[in-house]
């Protein structure tokens, strides 16, 4: 418990100038919105890239009108070259994983709501917070600059395996400057994330208002806290790995390039490096990274579902422990990306068991969600639809992980579309649904206006059905042996699968177009939406105790005191079937965390 006045000196005076209010703002709420805007732009870029990829896969030698304007060498006469496909694919993955899935659920919503949900005025290090956004912004600009500099972006996939990432342009277009720009961008991104993690962790541990014990934190706050712990430990490994690759390019080192490699009939001037070292470093980051992408969604969806269901989860503690277990176990499973990589085959078994075991907390989370629905009184709206959709997608995506966790099965499924289907369902769909649910739920608080409910439901239906139409067939393609990261499918056995790809492309274009409904809704509602009340969802956590939108210091100078846990629903109180966390009213309840 802390007396907030002791921290007053750390906090900033209200901003007055335009620059201080909207550009270089120290206010976590503005920073959160800035992150959201960045993620939105990134998501649209990533989505357009995916359209171009899908059109090329379905109709390989067809000209995409206008593509030559984006790159004359990459698309002569509008026909995409093999390297340009890979370059677009690399940028698609990089933009989506880093600048959308790590940014929106964690940095955007977390920055806006974590301080409010713990009852704080702001985060403890507002300047670091501001820097974290702007460093991330610069990282995005550096990444996008690779489209127009040199011979284009790197083509090595978002995983950037060695030695393809380190031998330079001799390995292909984009592998010189394109790789260096990618590495610089991601190194900057790591710095931004580390600064953010610092703030999130200290906010959660140190700035909780009176009465806000750890167990009384909303599940979204717990998710952001656990995610930031993962971020601190994962990004701090990716950062030096990127630096080492840059050194291999500019300083003549050979961290990742072995001896005696021959490209273009030329012996390469490198010796002694380790191909697998990069994979270990990358995946030690990479696996926690995908949990960084999903755990905020787990917390946010739980939070939204509880409000929508009008009852708490069967056990809040178990959900917290499961999120923690996912985070801890995520470090012990990373080798499941490397089963056939050439690492010691005993290691494969060693990584396989924790990967199978991580199914247990994931299953418990799903069981708690589903069986908490029993006896609930679900209010259906855009936010709750996406939250429920999240559960369906999480199950679908999680179940395919079950196959990939076993090395023997991975022999047949590694590097096929089965893997692509798996991670798109959990990240590309479930995590996105978490972002959508959060947007519909929290937009009223952030912008003071409700989003259009009809458009939200249309967005939901097209997205739910559409994403199943896109990504479920990926699993079948994978089982038939369709290899991933192919810019086209000339192999004999792939010919019968091309019609499937064409259907998927059509589904992808339609589903993509549906996202524009969301963008329109977001922008239109921001300015002309129905004005929102302070607590439109009849919810309980601290963000709903404050004004809509919250004042610059969140609580107008009067700190709340917390009397309840955040999920007192299904009770009888003076305001309805719920009691707000900051309300001193005592009611009869089954369980109220202390």
């Amino acid at each position: 418990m802390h007396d907030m006045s002791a921290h007053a000196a750390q906090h900033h005076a209200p901003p007055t100038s335009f620059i201080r209010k909207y550009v270089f703002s120290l206010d976590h709420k503005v920073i959160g919105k800035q992150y959201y805007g960045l993620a939105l732009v990134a998501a649209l870029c990533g989505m357009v890239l995916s359209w171009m990829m899908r059109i090329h896969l379905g109709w390989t030698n067809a000209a995409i009108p206008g593509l030559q304007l984006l790159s004359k060498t990459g698309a002569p006469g509008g026909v995409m070259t093999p390297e340009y496909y890979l370059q677009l694919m690399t940028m698609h993955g990089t933009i989506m994983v880093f600048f959308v899935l790590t940014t929106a659920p964690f940095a955007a919503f977390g920055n806006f709501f974590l301080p409010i949900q713990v009852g704080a005025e702001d985060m403890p290090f507002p300047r670091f917070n501001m820097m974290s956004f702007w460093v991330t912004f610069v990282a995005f600009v550096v990444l996008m600059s690779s489209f127009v500099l040199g011979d284009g972006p790197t083509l090595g996939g978002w995983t950037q395996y060695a030695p393809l990432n380190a031998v330079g342009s001799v390995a292909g277009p984009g592998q010189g400057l394109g790789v260096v720009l990618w590495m610089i961008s991601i190194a900057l991104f790591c710095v931004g994330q580390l600064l953010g993690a610092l703030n999130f962790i200290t906010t959660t541990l140190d700035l909780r208002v009176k009465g806000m014990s750890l167990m009384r934190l909303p599940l979204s706050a717990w998710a952001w806290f656990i995610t930031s712990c993962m971020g601190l430990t994962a990004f701090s490994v990716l950062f030096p790995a990127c630096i080492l690759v840059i050194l291999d390019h500019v300083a003549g080192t050979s961290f990742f390039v072995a001896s005696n490699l021959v490209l273009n009939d030329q012996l390469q001037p490198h010796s002694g490096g380790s191909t697998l070292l990069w994979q270990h470093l990358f995946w030690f980051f990479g696996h926690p990274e995908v949990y960084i992408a999903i755990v905020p969604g787990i917390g946010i969806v739980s939070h939204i579902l509880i409000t929508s269901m009008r009852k708490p989860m069967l056990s809040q503690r178990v959900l917290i422990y499961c999120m923690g277990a996912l985070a801890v176990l995520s470090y012990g499973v990373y080798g499941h990306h490397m089963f056939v990589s050439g690492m010691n085959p005993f290691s494969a078994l060693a990584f396989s068991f924790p990967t199978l075991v991580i199914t247990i907390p994931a299953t418990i989370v799903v069981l708690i969600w589903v069986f908490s629905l029993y006896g609930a009184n679900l209010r259906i709206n855009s936010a709750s639809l996406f939250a429920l959709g999240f559960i369906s997608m999480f199950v679908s995506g999680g179940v395919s992980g079950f196959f990939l966790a076993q090395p023997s099965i991975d022999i047949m499924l590694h590097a096929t579309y089965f893997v692509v289907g798996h991670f798109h369902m959990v990240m590309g769909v479930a995590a996105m649904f978490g972002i959508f649910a959060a947007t519909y739920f929290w937009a009223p608080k952030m912008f003071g206006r409700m989003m259009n409910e009809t458009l939200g439901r249309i967005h939901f239906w097209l997205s739910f059905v559409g994403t199943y139409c896109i990504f479920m067939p990926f699993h079948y393609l994978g089982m038939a042996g369709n290899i991933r990261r192919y810019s086209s499918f000339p192999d004999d056995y792939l010919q019968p699968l091309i019609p499937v790809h064409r259907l998927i492309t059509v589904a992808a274009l339609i589903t993509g177009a549906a996202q524009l409904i969301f963008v329109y809704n977001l922008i239109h509602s921001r300015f002309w939406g129905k004005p929102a009340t302070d607590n439109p969802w009849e919810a309980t956590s601290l963000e709903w105790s404050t004004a809509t939108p919250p004042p610059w210091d969140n609580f107008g100078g009067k700190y709340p005191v917390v009397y309840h846990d955040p999920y007192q629903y299904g009770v009888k109180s003076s305001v309805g079937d719920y009691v707000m966390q900051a309300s001193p009213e005592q009611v009869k309840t089954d369980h109220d965390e202390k």
Partner: protein
Amino acid sequence: MAKFFAVTIIIIAILSAIPILRHTWVAPEDISTHGYLIDEQMSETMAEAGIAFLAAQFILAIFIWMFSNRGRDAKIKKFPGGATGLVIAALLLVGAEVLALGVFGVKAWADQYLTPPSAGAMPIQVQAGQFAFYFRYPGPDGTFGATHPELINEGSQNFFGLDPEHDPDSRDDIVTAEMAIPVNKEIHLLMHAKDVGHSFFVRELRVQQDFVPGLDVSLHFTATKVGKYEIVCTQLCGLGHYNMKAYLYVYSQEDFENWVKKEQAMQ
């Protein structure tokens, strides 16, 4: 809308399961000696994953149908047993399932990766380089000549950097762009990466293994059925990755020997 949603979930779940149950898109016939263990593992996992998938989606749908928009005065109920029952169920059911799959899967993996090739296995070298596979057979002297990376010259087809002028062992080496093996004979595949990472995948043989620059890995397997199969690269290696493949021919012993003679004449 809730009921419509519930029905949609169920329809999607059933439609997703249909291609699996009808074996519409499946791995091709297994022609290996070790693959049946992988296929069994896959079937068991599919059954368990399939049941879990259908059960979860169905229960989700049913609960959405039953417990939505029940009116402001509806009584909130709690699932009997609460979280405790669920945690125990998850630990027991899922725990047992994953342990079983993990333990039974060890043999499928170990047979391929933790056992050495037998003494009589036929060595064949494969080199992966942007963007083709080339194979080398040791020739009648049974010895592979030394490779010299600095002598590699693709224009004159010296893919392995052999030095026949000074190295007698390499003079009878047979370098081919297609791989041929005799049926029912164990092969010891020696894998070398010329430039960046690549991978060797033959679906029918149930083998997949990355080439690691700087680390010479190997595979062993036995093909049990004559035929023509495709070897494809599965590790992103550059712009030609999609076009990196070679044909694998499994021949009878006689046809294999004829093939070797034919290739030898072309060296």
